[in-house]
């Protein structure tokens, strides 16, 4: 019996061995699966569990003008946050009363934020005032999970708005988070227009992180590795602009209550000195929380204050375009500057009559420019032809983006034969189109910025410099000043050609009988050209392009005043004053032209109150 039992047991032993071996191998396999194959995934989960990352927001870079004056700074702002994990949802009504927010808004924010992370604080109200902050502080015990962060908001130090140039920041949208990737989280700000948008990556800096250990209840137990792995936030880099904010403020004041644009550029390097688009708005309204009513009002305003007229509009340039035709004519050899036309006050082409304001008699090119004789340029356009005209127009930068570094820009419209064919069908347009184009009217659109670049070319005799606003970037660590380089090249148009046209422009301002005498500035010679662009929707737009001093130009300018009539009376004096303000650092004139008299008082006030 016992013996048989023993033999049986040896067989059974093997079965039990097999069971033990099988289960051990099975479990080892499972360990292998968890710890070797899925180890990374579980490792991540365990980190998510136990390490809470507190994001440190970088301080956005500041902005200086060409003289080193701080124009965009940061100020602390308190942002209320709610951490869903700790927050008691029953306190929503109380919190909404305290913060004067819609309870539904808080719930919605919580809901969205929770989907992202239960432990990450959700920003529910930016830039609260001190009263609200102290009310919050007093009631902290009743509001678990409610906290505030110190963030920075933009602070504008000057009298100038420069709204379209500097641009504003806003909270990043969900769509942007998807496209921009990891760098952005809900509630972050991102540059939305102007320099803020164009130089977003430069200004933004890098987020830092602090790692804290939390236990299962989400309570912070301590720093991970005593903070050795923490990543400090990297401050954004600063921008140094080519702009002169004294001139900017002054130029803005000149267009008070008008619609229009002023762009001034340094013709020696393409740096923008001032860029005004009116009406505009106060950027500080956007620095904290933008009230939705304000946003709606700005969007709905029919004067379109958010719209940058300096770079986005397409106005016909009027007579200011005559230099372009003149360059094309002389440089292509179609005429010599001595070529004359007898102006009888009008020109008949087919059955159409093109008018002039005066009877100029026999004029050559320089006189035709000085007196802005339309008949001369009608004839010249017919002689030069569309193709040559378009070719030089393109070379001077029309119908193309200038590449300026402020994010929004319109290429305008420079008609070519191909374009007109497309538009009207082959043979659908005739030579009758041409005379109007010759004086910058009709189917042609330019931006004030393009006109300024054009003025700069006329000023420096054909050295093209890409217009730009940022001169240099100051990096924080290591501290370096990187001067940005922009495209520069000669256009390859003969100096003699420029000389003739520049002489015409000089006479416009400086000689009796010139249309731009109101742009004159005492002490040096200026050159320019007025323009009056016909506008089917109302009174003519007033244009002026010019530069000064004539011999060694330091400023080129284009002024557009919507619906203001003659270029010579509305735009030219504004340009003159800007030039004067820039070259002298102040206004030296005692007499003001009549249309601007009412502004004198306002101007005086602004000038005496020197910007910090």
């Amino acid at each position: 019996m016992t013996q048989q039992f023993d033999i049986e047991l040896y067989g059974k032993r093997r079965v039990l061995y097999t069971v033990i071996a099988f289960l051990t191998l099975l479990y080892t396999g499972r360990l292998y699966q968890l710890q070797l194959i899925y180890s990374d995934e579980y490792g991540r989960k365990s980190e998510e569990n136990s390490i809470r990352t507190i994001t440190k927001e970088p301080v956005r870079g500041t902005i200086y003008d060409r003289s080193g004056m701080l124009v965009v700074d940061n100020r602390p702002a308190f942002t209320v946050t709610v951490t869903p994990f700790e927050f008691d949802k029953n306190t929503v009504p109380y919190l909404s009363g305290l913060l004067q927010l819609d309870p539904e808004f808080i719930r919605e924010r919580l809901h969205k934020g929770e989907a992202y992370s239960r432990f990450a604080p959700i920003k529910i109200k930016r830039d609260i005032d001190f009263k609200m902050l102290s009310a919050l502080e007093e009631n902290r015990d009743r509001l678990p999970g409610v906290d505030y962060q110190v963030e920075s908001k933009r602070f504008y130090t000057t009298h100038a708005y420069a709204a379209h140039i500097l641009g504003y920041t806003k909270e990043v949208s969900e769509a942007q988070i998807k496209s921009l990737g990891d760098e952005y989280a809900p509630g972050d700000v991102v540059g939305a227009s102007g320099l803020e948008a164009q130089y977003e990556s430069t200004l933004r800096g890098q987020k830092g992180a602090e790692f804290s250990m939390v236990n299962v209840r989400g309570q912070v137990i301590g720093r991970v590795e005593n903070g050795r792995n923490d990543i400090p936030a990297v401050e954004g880099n600063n921008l140094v602009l080519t702009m002169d904010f004294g001139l900017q403020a002054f130029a803005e004041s000149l267009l008070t209550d008008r619609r229009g644009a002023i762009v001034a550029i340094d013709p020696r390097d393409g740096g923008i000195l001032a860029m005004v688009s009116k009406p505009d708005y106060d950027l500080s309204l956007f620095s904290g929380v933008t009230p939705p009513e304000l946003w709606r009002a700005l969007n709905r305003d029919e004067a379109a204050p958010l719209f940058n007229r300096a770079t986005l509009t397409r106005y016909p340039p009027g007579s200011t375009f005559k230099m372009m035709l003149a360059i094309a004519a002389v440089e292509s050899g179609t005429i010599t500057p001595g070529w004359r036309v007898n102006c009888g006050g009008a020109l008949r082409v087919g059955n159409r009559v093109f008018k002039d304001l005066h009877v100029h008699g026999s004029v050559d090119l320089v006189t035709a420019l000085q007196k802005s004789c339309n008949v001369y340029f009608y004839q010249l356009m017919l002689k030069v032809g569309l193709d040559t005209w378009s070719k030089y127009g393109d070379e001077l930068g029309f119908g193309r983006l200038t590449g300026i570094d402020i994010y929004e820009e319109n290429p305008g419209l420079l008609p070519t034969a191909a374009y007109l064919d497309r538009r009207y069908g082959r043979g659908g347009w005739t030579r009758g189109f041409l005379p109007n184009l010759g004086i910058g009217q009709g189917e042609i659109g330019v931006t004030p910025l393009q006109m300024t670049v054009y003025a700069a070319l006329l000023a420096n005799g054909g050295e093209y410099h890409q217009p730009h606003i940022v001169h240099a970037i100051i990096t924080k660590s290591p501290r370096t000043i990187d001067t940005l380089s922009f495209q520069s090249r000669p256009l390859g148009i003969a100096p003699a050609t420029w000389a003739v046209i520049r002489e015409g422009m000089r006479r416009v301002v400086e000689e009796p009988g010139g249309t731009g005498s109101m742009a004159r500035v005492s002490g040096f010679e200026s050159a320019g050209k007025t323009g009056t662009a016909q506008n089917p929707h109302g009174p003519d737009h007033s244009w002026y392009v010019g530069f000064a001093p004539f011999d060694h130009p330091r400023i080129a300018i284009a002024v557009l005043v919507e619906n203001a009539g003659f270029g010579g009376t509305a735009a030219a004096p504004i340009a003159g004053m800007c030039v004067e303000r820039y070259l002298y650092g102040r206004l030296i004139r005692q007499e003001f032209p009549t249309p601007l008299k009412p502004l004198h008082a306002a101007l005086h006030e602004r000038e005496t109150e020197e910007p910090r």
Partner: protein
Amino acid sequence: MIIRTIRERFDAWTTLITIALVVIGIFAVYSATFDARASDTFHKQVMFAIIGTVVMAAVIFIPFRILQLVSLPAYALSILMLVSVLLLGKTVSGSTSWFTLGALRLQPSEFTKITTVLALAAYLSRSDVSLRNVRHLMIASGIVVLPVALIMMQPDTGTAIIYLGMFIPVLYWGGASSFTLVSIIAPVVVAVAALLGTTPFLIAVLATGALLYLTKEHRIVAVLVFSLTVLIGISVQFMYDGLKHYQQKRIATFLDPNADPLGAGYNILQSKVAIGSGGVFGKGYLQGTQTQLNFIPEQWTDFIFCVPSEEFGFLGAATVLALFAVLLWRGVALGATVKNRYGSFVAVGITAVLGTHIFINIGMALGMLPVIGVPLPFLSYGGSSLVAALTMVGLLLNLYANRKEY
């Protein structure tokens, strides 16, 4: 001469493995309770380890014939204790399984495991008892079912399952027919399959049918057992509804731990995260974030396996698993070597008790089994459990020393 005698009678492997596991357990408990919140847990565990070692050493020297004689009285005594626990016991986390004896709190069900094995061995080793005899089989089953019924009333499902895990190998060892084994295992398998879904249920039923057919038992009896099995499978769904909510949840989360990651599936998920994040070499002792930050509730008891797995990685976890496997292997080998029939049953029974604990506990930590409250022998915090486990090893060592005696 003396040295040879010692070497001959002393199972060094089993002893060393046991000591290694106890030491690992102490370190693991220390790590799991490191944040000082429960620091006296560690001191207590050291004390229990000392008490357990003394008991283990004492058990080695009890002549096993005396053990055989006291088996039934000891069993009767432990049953009595179970009854008194039900009447006077202390309720800890919803189950009345504690017994306060002076300053010590005892869990009689831990010791009943041992006495049940001893009683079963004593009964089955009688030369007039055969497991082919239905009456004897019923008596043997009765020895097991009585404590199970009492423990289920506490209620403590985990411990109850241990008895089943012990009973089947012992029956097999004692020569029960394959029909008997199939009849006992099949209802359990079918019941679990029923919880998993219709397809597993049908497969289990078909497999049962096939196995019963292969045992060539009397047709009518086979059909009876088969019908009963199917009936159990079907009624499981109804029983499920009758289960306590937490038990239902445990089953449901086992089936899909991700369904409710912060609720009932939390333990399993966090346990897997702890083990998985350990990687190959682990995070280092006292560096396991899951362990140190208390992400696993009651980790020092039922989820202690996570500690070596997280802090020492695959190497640590596999080492612990290997130590257990060798221990069980030696237990089975002992069962086949011991000349005495009673001793053979005790060895296999104890090995089965330990094995069931080990595989259920680790299987649960690995997310392969539902959360069943079963401690991991030697490692889990708990005086009764540790002392009981060491007593069992003492019995194995005793049998090893006397393995050549009839």
